[in-house]
């Protein structure tokens, strides 16, 4: 049965769609992204999650690191990739299988980007389901999604600004102009204003969902947005099928198209990125390019891996960590180069190296990988390394890192920030 909240939410979406139908084009939020060189405000950098920044560091060594235990409360949980805004690095510790949400207080830490001193750590009882996003004209608000369905907004001083009770386990939000898009673990896409006002919610489609109820958890990924609308992906109910559904919405919540990606090897929606000409998606270990206007498939590239990270895109290529780091041509999905990853085939073989699975930021002809960068043109290592030796410290279990990235970097014009399960939060500059 649908709960009252869901009926109301569905009604809201229908109303929004209805209005859009009458008035022609749906309301398009004002969303100018000014491509900052001093910030990486959301997980994917920009609303399209291209991971393509105008500038990044050309060399660097470890400048500072904040260990998990040095913060109070400690930075436990699966560390999200950092976001950076207004001289501050924000990192969330997510609830996982190992940090059970029923008794885990997720930390959200604010760290001074220059000095590495911890400004504050806020705890969220019940756990966080996704990483932070910074919104607002003055980067004054940090938003994180809870396992309990609450979207939390925190001021840059750590004080609570607002909470929106959306329901479901919330993932990482995307900021688009003055609004946020976030998907719940039940596959429902929410549009929320920067003041916490709920604009609309769109349920995932399908008859089985209506029968079983939309709160059944599914795997989702962070939505991405452009001026045409917003894009979301989830794994549908028929769990034995290797398929992911991708949906294109307009900014009013009306659905533009639906695509089913039934690629081989893995069925998790591992990330989206949208550009002027295409929507790129990783499903399991397969990379897809879809027509962003119709959802029609343009090409697919089967890496052979079962897992992969989100894609990033610059003018020439799509980059994805899928065990190896791959660069594919945007137009045809043809491999241009790869950085071979030497980790053994399975985590059972005592790996001293781990797969490349993080979103690979790209800036000014460099693709950032672990603690350095490779050339975007040919994949040769420019500086830094894999930091596999960092594994040798701490309680090392390889198994989780064959599913999730070991080191997730982001960049600003002069520095690289990354989270690492054994080193905590690290600045390389």
């Amino acid at each position, binding site marked *: 049965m649908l709960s009252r909240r869901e009926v109301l939410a569905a009604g809201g979406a229908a109303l929004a769609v209805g209005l859009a139908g009458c008035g022609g084009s749906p309301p398009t939020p004002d969303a100018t992204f000014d491509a900052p060189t001093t910030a990486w405000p959301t997980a994917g950098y920009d609303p399209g999650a291209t991971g393509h920044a105008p500038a990044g560091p050309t060399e660097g060594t470890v400048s500072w690191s904040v260990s998990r235990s040095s913060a109070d409360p400690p930075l436990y949980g699966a560390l999200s990739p950092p976001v950076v805004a207004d001289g501050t690095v924000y990192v969330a510790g997510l609830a996982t299988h190992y940090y059970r949400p029923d008794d885990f207080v997720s930390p959200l830490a604010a760290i001074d980007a220059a000095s590495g001193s911890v400004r504050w750590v806020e705890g969220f009882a019940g756990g966080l389901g996704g990483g932070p996003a910074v919104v607002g004209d003055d980067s004054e608000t940090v938003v994180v999604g809870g396992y309990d369905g609450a979207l939390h907004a925190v001021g840059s001083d750590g004080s609570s600004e607002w909470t929106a009770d959306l329901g479901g386990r919330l993932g990482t939000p995307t900021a688009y102009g003055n609004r946020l898009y976030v998907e719940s673990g039940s596959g429902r896409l929410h549009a929320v204003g920067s003041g916490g006002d709920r604009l609309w919610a769109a349920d995932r489609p399908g008859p089985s969902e209506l029968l079983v109820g939309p709160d059944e958890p599914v795997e989702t990924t962070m939505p991405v947005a452009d001026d045409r609308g917003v894009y979301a992906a989830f794994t549908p109910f028929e769990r034995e*099928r290797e398929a992911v559904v991708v949906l294109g919405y307009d900014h009013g919540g009306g659905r533009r198209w639906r695509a089913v990606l039934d690629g*081989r*090897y893995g069925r998790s929606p591992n990330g989206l990125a949208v550009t002027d000409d295409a929507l790129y998606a990783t499903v399991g270990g397969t990379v897809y390019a879809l027509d962003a206007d119709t959802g029609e498939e343009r090409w*697919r590239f*089967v*890496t*052979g*891996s079962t897992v992969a990270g989100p894609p990033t895109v610059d003018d020439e290529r799509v980059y994805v960590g899928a*065990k*190896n780091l791959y660069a594919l041509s945007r137009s045809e999905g*043809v*491999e241009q180069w*790869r950085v*071979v*990853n*030497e*980790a*053994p*085939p399975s985590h059972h073989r005592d790996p001293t190296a781990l797969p490349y699975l993080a979103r690979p930021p790209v800036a000014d002809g460099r693709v950032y990988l672990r603690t350095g960068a490779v050339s975007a043109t040919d994949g040769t290592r420019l500086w830094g390394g894999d930091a596999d030796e960092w594994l040798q410290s701490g309680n090392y279990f390889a198994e989780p890192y064959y599913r999730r990235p070991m080191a997730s970097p982001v960049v600003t014009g002069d520095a690289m920030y990354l989270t690492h399960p054994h080193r905590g939060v690290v600045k390389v500059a």
Partner: protein
Amino acid sequence: MTDADRRPTRRRLLASLGSAAAVGAAGCLGTRSEHNPTSGECPEYDPVEPATTDWRGVLGPTTNTGAVAAEAVPEGDLAIDWTVPVETYVGHHVPVVADGTVYVHDMDDELSAVDAETGERMWTRPLTDPEPAPAVGGGTLVVVTGEETHAFDAATGDRRWKRDDLGGGIFGASPIVAGDTVYVQSGVATHALSRSTGETRWRTATGFPSDSTPAVDGDTVYTAGDDTYVRALAAADGAERWRAKTSARIACNVSVVAGTVLVGTGAGNVLGFDAETGEERWRYRLEPRRARGERRPRRPETIATDGSRVYVATDDRLVALALADGTRCWDNRNYAGGYASGIAVGAGKVFVPTHDDSGGAMTVLDAATGNTQQELAGDERQRFDIGPSVAGGGVYFAGRNAVVRLS
């Protein structure tokens, strides 16, 4: 209507059953479709006579054709010459045969050499967890175990060298000995080792494991694996000559004959590539399996070829395609696929393990027509699950704690 008119029509009809569903509304009965763009006319059977009379690796020669010279193939109906007990809790792998000696291991703790004529054991030695089929060349026997790669003097069983960093698996690639080089798929790379010392000559990593036994033809090594690509590497230094992308992992062996490189992918496609350029010449899509309303690819597990036909084994059937264009010529639906079941071809005959009413059998097929020439049922003492290999006038199988020679 004469028989001559009817036969190709009927064959075409049967051949089309697999792809008819895929063609669907197109409504024609031929095999021509997006996936199988051939006319359905199987060209004349015209095999290339190979030179080899030994069976030196899991699929015979270093080209993995599973084909031997006519002189190596016994004439007439086969009968058992001898059986040699090889007790094991684990299983067997395909026997390899060179210079009158048969090499077998028990996948557990022992490696043996057996006289091909008499079935007498020439030597045995302990060996922990031998996994895929061995390979032999230049008097050196190479065995990959779960954790290591070993080389022995093929005549005496004395150890030549060991690599404790290169292991394999039961379902993994077998080693290949070609000239003075040993090729091993291990970890996430292809390794070329000196046959005499075991030292690495070169190593090329794709980042993914490979269960696909590579093929070596002249100065080129053809590899495939979970990476989804087929690659031609220079035997001298591992430099990539070409690569071709496929849409799925490749676990089936690579095979090369008459300028064509053959692979089968996990998506159920068999592909033929130009060995010089890597250009795709044809592809054939195996009929998918239907289960609970879903279509699942039928995965190629072994590929052999005699230069006229391509023999593709899945877990439940053997399909013969024309090497020239991938047209299906015939199939056999009694094929008994297992972890180490194979194909051997020579003198116009195809030797395969099959199912019969009593469980398992050894079957000889006519290569041109697919007709069964002989079917020999296994019994309580002897089965024919593993193999075959054909060498020096004998056919070898393993199964149920014994290795058998027939001629």
